[in-house]
């Protein structure tokens, strides 16, 4: 376990020219993201970074006054790659607000659908979007010496994935021509078929409802899912060693690469996959059923598991402004003064947020983005922590590993690692993988965790399918619980969107939505400097990034910055824009990096 409290900050004290380099838009992510940096080429480091998103849609505004039953259909449309995570999270909040519990088979069907979403989404993002940053074409253009070394470096796990050298792995990742790129794209379709079996349509599901699902549980439904799942399990036996070889090579080929995208270990996970034996969707039992999720909720600070209690996680969420285009709501209406357990609820909590947009010119010294700044209040220290999700998997694994709660045959938390057991498949024997807590929260480890989590999701799906078929064989096939919408209620849903924490908070008055605030992972990751001046995670991670790219200023691609940003799996309907135009020298001065004068 790592106990590092702050990443290494090197300050050589040399004079450096700061050059403004911007990338707008950053591609191969979902949504609109701009990254604006000041780079010190002499010291080969990023001195400053601002992250900006250029889209505003206003869900929290137009949902007011709507029927609360419509919330999951509407909020699915927040995101075009993980809309189902929103729909699912919304049904969790609806279930709480309406006071209902779906039948167990419905819960297993949702878990199977969500597992397929992780299997699909991590796969396509890792191998068709992130993978391009590590492909032959990109590495040749940015680090020719690394390409040369890759050609003479045998892949340690060649027997498992059949690519003889690291260079072969990189070639396989070339867009639209690499064999692995194309295979992954195909696989991302099969997993989406699995998803559609359970939730009807990708990416905005048709068969989810408050109270359960409309999916008809039949023998055929599970047969169709399981035969596809086992093909994916076989694929995983190749994919995990493939990525381990690639990522380990980068540490070897570029000593110090662990500093790319590194930030303090400040990770949040809100838990995923409810256990129907325990989960009753009541707020008062939330601590208990949260701890029975198959991905354990938790906050990890400097390598320490601070809490696994969803009630505590909930109450300490704070939405700060500072650099976002909105009016403050400190003096606006308070919708919820106390939670159902009698704990006071802060005015800056999502239940009490009032969203009032104020479009204006972009000014990096003042307001520069549509993203707000969610923080988690650490009552031990009084700090408003800029938690990140690390793109999802690293935070999920870290919390789950330390909590030591999950043990379902195919996946097991050991207290210091997470083990994944994959049974025999058509052409490959049984395999065990173990995700071990890494030394750093950095770009490579975020990416590595993503691959391991694909295998984890497959393992969980094997368990869920067994449980679902038990219900089916016992004849317990009812999938939906009827309900009445109460006049007054509050609800909250906690889930893991593919790229990290997701919460939905709803307030119902007069049978209609009075307030609704979803907090997806990207506001946590892509947010700007808050009212205390604390930068958001992308900004923070990029600001600490050393430059390994061999190109000079004229041909600079910013590949290390791209790898740092993409490791968070940005999704900016919940983005970063960089234009690497003609870099403009801003000023010549002592480089007061990170505020330290030498």
């Amino acid at each position: 376990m790592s106990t590092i409290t702050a990443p290494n900050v090197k300050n050589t004290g040399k004079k450096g020219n700061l050059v403004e380099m911007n990338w707008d838009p950053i591609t191969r992510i979902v949504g609109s993201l701009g990254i604006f940096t000041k780079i010190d080429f002499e010291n080969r480091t990023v001195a400053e970074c601002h992250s900006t998103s250029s889209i505003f849609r206003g869900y929290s505004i137009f949902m007011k006054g709507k029927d609360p039953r419509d919330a999951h259909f509407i909020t699915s449309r927040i995101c075009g790659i993980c809309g189902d995570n929103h729909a699912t999270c919304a049904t969790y909040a609806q279930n709480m607000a309406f006071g209902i519990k779906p039948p167990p088979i419905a819960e297993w069907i949702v878990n199977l659908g969500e597992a397929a979403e992780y299997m699909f989404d991590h796969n396509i993002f890792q191998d068709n979007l992130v993978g391009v940053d590590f492909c032959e074409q990109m590495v040749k253009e940015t680090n020719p010496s690394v390409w040369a070394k890759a050609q003479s470096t045998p892949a340690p796990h060649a027997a498992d994935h059949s690519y003889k050298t690291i260079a072969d792995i990189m070639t396989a990742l070339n867009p639209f021509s690499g064999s692995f790129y194309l295979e992954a794209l195909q696989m991302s379709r099969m997993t989406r078929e699995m998803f559609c079996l359970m939730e009807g349509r990708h990416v905005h599901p048709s068969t989810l409802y408050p109270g359960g699902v409309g999916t008809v549980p039949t023998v055929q439904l599970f047969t169709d899912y399981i035969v596809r799942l086992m093909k994916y399990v076989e694929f995983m036996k190749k994919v995990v060693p493939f990525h381990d070889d690639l990522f380990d090579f980068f540490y070897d080929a570029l000593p110090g690469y662990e500093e790319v995208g590194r930030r303090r270990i400040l990770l949040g996970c809100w838990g995923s996959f409810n256990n129907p034996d325990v989960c009753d969707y009541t707020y008062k039992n939330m601590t208990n059923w949260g701890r029975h999720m198959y991905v354990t909720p938790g906050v990890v600070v400097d390598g320490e598991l601070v809490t696994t209690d969803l009630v505590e996680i909930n109450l300490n969420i704070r939405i700060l402004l500072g650099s976002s285009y909105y009016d403050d709501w400190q003096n606006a209406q308070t919708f919820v003064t106390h939670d159902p357990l009698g704990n006071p609820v802060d005015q800056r909590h999502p239940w009490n947020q009032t969203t009032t947009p104020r479009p204006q010119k972009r000014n990096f010294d003042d307001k520069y983005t549509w993203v707000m700044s969610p923080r988690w209040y650490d009552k031990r220290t009084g700090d408003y922590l800029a938690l990140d999700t690390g793109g999802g998997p690293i935070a999920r694994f870290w919390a789950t590993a330390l909590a030591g709660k999950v043990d379902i045959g195919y996946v097991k938390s050991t207290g210091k690692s997470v083990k994944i057991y994959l049974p025999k498949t058509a052409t490959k024997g049984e395999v065990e993988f173990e995700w071990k807590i890494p030394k750093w929260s950095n770009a490579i480890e975020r990416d590595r965790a993503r691959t391991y989590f694909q295998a984890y999701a497959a393992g969980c799906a094997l368990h869920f399918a067994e449980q679902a078929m038990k219900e089916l064989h016992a004849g317990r096939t009812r999938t939906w619980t009827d309900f009445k919408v109460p006049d007054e209620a509050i609800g909250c849903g906690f889930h893991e969107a593919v790229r990290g924490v997701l919460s939905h908070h709803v307030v119902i008055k007069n049978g209609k939505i009075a307030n609704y605030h979803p907090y997806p992972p990207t506001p946590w990751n892509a947010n700007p400097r808050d009212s205390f001046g604390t930068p958001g995670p992308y900004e923070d991670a990029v600001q600490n990034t050393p430059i390994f790219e061999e190109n000079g200023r004229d041909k600079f691609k910013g590949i290390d910055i791209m790898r740092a940003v993409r490791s968070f799996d940005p999704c900016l309907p919940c983005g970063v824009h960089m234009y690497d135009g003609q870099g403009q020298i801003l000023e010549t001065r002592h480089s007061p990096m990170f505020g330290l004068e030498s």
Partner: protein
Amino acid sequence: MPPEAIPYGRKTQRPSPVAEVHVVWMTAGLGCDGDSVSITAATQPSIEDIVLGAIPGLPKVHVHNPVIAYENGADFLKYWYQAEKGELDPFVLVVEGSIPNEKIKKDGYWAALGTDPNTGQPIPTCDWIDRLAPKALAVVAAGTCAAYGGIHAMEGNPTGCMGLADYLGWEWKSKAGLPVVNVPGCPVQPDNFMETLLYLLYQVSGLAPMIPLDDQLRPTWLFGRTVHEGCDRAGYYEQGDFAESYGSPKCIVKLGCWGPVVNCNVPKRGWMNGIGGCPNVGGICIGCTMPGFPDKFMPFMDEPPGGKLSSSAVSVYGSAIRTLRSFTNKTVNKEPKWRHGGRELTTGYRPSSY
């Protein structure tokens, strides 16, 4: 293989008269990128079928979409600037997301793509549409947001957003004489979009006539029939047999399905590779392909008001039909009486030789 080795092929197979076509795909409307993600699921044709030239007769296609692009930042946006200058000719402009109204406020932007090098300010999506639409061979709205406004244009929305044809004008024509082509769906059904793109590429190559569109500018072969007409649960409707609870395999119109009046082929085509869909797999049709979406279909989980009358009428007739059919069903579930063991043949054949 040298051309002289395939003389018959020379007669029927010609290269496209247009050597190269660019697809400039803007996801910077008010959307979720769900339509871009959707097309990566398409298989009829797939994105790689188009990009790698797997279908004969088409030009070389270059797709510039931010979700899958190799390039970043300025390297990526250069295609936008080239298109604006007329250097990327011909190109098809695809727009995703609804078009915000930037005129209703004093300053700032609702949606933008890239940064103006002169001002340092974001370039509004509307500016890009103004710059590129006049230069495009065809303009395609991918998904309901771009087509008609969609979810982000719901009543009470702060951005005043709308569909592309609302923005450009419903009578707008491209320089090649095509109106806006709408492929609605929330998100767009993967193959519906790719097939429309394929059609336009055929048209560009002179291999297809003008794309047939209805008055809502939708391809007629995709949106000419209703959900109900293609739904494999319509038989339950005919028999007046309605689901009372989600999860039932019966017709779900009483649970909020708008299928009888919604133009969409999803139950027929499935969501991808024939799998999934909406009412065919237990999901109420919420009208997500329609110009009136979402407001005219909310609250989604109530029975559609017009539907009540027709489903009540069909209940009377349907239950009579159902009773009669159940007699017939019992009969056809029995094998004919001459299939039996024993020493006697009762099939009607009268053997004379054994």
